[in-house]
């Protein structure tokens, strides 16, 4: 018998939306147009900027692999994993978003391994699940190959 868990982002305000509308959320400075992810909500970090308002902005959905690796060993806490289960490694992908000129690290969708990846390959951001506990499904972002090569 399963009970209903609440779906909660692992970090509030970093991403939103479902399906094709899923986006990472950053902020953009109204004065210099710098984009920040993770979001800056108090001050623009461009040292040459007089300082503007920081408004939420969705990041590009697609980008290209800057580099990738994986986690063959169980990461320590605060990463959450079930010590009763055998460790399943997952790929980590750094993806460069062309418009924002930013590289964002994320886990690959389950099932994608380093053998499936090459630098320069096109990726898209999709909603994913980080872990579940009794009450909560903790959601995150995943990178998924679009099928377009390097």
């Amino acid at each position, binding site marked *: 018998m399963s009970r209903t868990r609440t779906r909660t982002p*692992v*970090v509030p305000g970093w991403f939103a939306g479902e399906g094709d509308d899923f986006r990472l959320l*950053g902020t953009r*400075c109204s004065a*210099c*147009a*710098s*984009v*920040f*992810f*993770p979001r800056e909500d108090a001050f623009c*970090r*461009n*040292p*040459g*900027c007089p300082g503007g308002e920081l408004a939420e902005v969705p990041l590009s959905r697609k980008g290209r692999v*800057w*580099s*990738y*690796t*994986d*986690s*063959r*060993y169980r*990461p*320590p*806490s*605060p*990463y*959450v*994993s079930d010590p009763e289960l055998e460790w399943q490694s*997952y790929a*980590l992908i*750094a993806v460069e978003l062309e*418009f*924002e*000129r*930013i*590289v*964002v*690290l*994320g*886990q690959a969708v389950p099932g994608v391994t*380093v053998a499936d990846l*090459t*630098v*320069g390959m096109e990726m898209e951001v999709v909603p994913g699940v*980080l872990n579940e506990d009794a009450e909560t499904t903790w959601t*995150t972002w995943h990178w998924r190959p679009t099928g377009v090569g390097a």
Partner: protein
Amino acid sequence: MTGEVAVLGAGMHPWGKWGRGFVEYGTVAARAALADAGVDWRDVGSIVGADTVRGGYPGYVAGATFAKALGWQGARVASVYAACASGAQAVNTARAQILSGLADVVLVVGADAAPKGFFRPAGGDRPDDPDWLRFRVLGATNPTYFGLYARRRMAVHGDTLEDFAQVKVKNAAQGALNPNARYRKRVTAEEVAASTVVADPLRLLDICATSDGAAALVLSSMEFARRHEVADPVRIRAVSTVTPRFPTTVLDLPDIATDSAVAVEPAAETFRASIARAAYEEAGIGPEDLSLAEVYDLSTALELQWYEDLGLCGEGEAAKLLREGATAPGGRIPVNVSGGLASFGEAVPAQAIAQVCELTWQLRGTAGERQITGARVGITANQGLFGHGSSVIAVR
């Protein structure tokens, strides 16, 4: 050009897993450095400790902790923290005090007692701490970042796993000659290849371990060195402690993303390259003047990256430099003749100080079997997480 300070003494506690506290290791290293300098602890005007975050409160006030352990004698005290760059900050704090006339003789000490396995963030839920977030959200350990850099080099520059293994082979051969190193066995390329993958493409023997260890230096004014009848001391000519420039373009620990370069064009040189350039400019020398370099080989691939960042070769040419043997003993510019982190394992606050200890012994000509003939100029390079540059140039 900034003035020089003299290195009167250098000392270490051997690296390893000894099961004792960092205070004991640091005190051993400090006593060794004082003995090497021929300076009585009671004549030291200032002590600077490089902090450890793994020893409870005494680790956060390491300068005072070591002063108490050596016996309170009233010295001025400072404690500094800059992750892997803590040691360089400690050296620089000492140097600033000496050059400004605040102190004649300063003792610099860094020591750590490392935990088993991956470094992990301090306990508690801290969603505003990037170091906590990278573990919670991504499970991104330090080797994750090393793996990303290594794969990027393979894709962009054509480095191979065999190149990475060769770095380990080179450094392990040196570690075998170093009584302060933790790993004192030579390693073959086959052994590297047979070791288990930790973070693709890197294997266990590509990645440095975490160790207990301690290193200390006695620094003084040139005038004090003369009075102390040290005619030709090793001198520290530059200490680079620069920070990055916005926007950063290399994904660095512990960040989940780089800065965005959409509004501001990034500087032509990376942060790591700027660390070395600042040191060269301060010292008034260039890479062509170097006799040796000690670089932070957290991974084998990262050592290759440093070759380029130090200007030992052009971008993308590091593996070629390695294959030519230029960075091995007897080559044009030997790198990590101490054995490097590959042979020591990282003892965070001690490591940058240990690099300067090796330069000191090499420049004095007392490095025994590891001695690089005629060494006159050495550089250290390292980078502490959260944007800390660290590079020291020493001459004799």
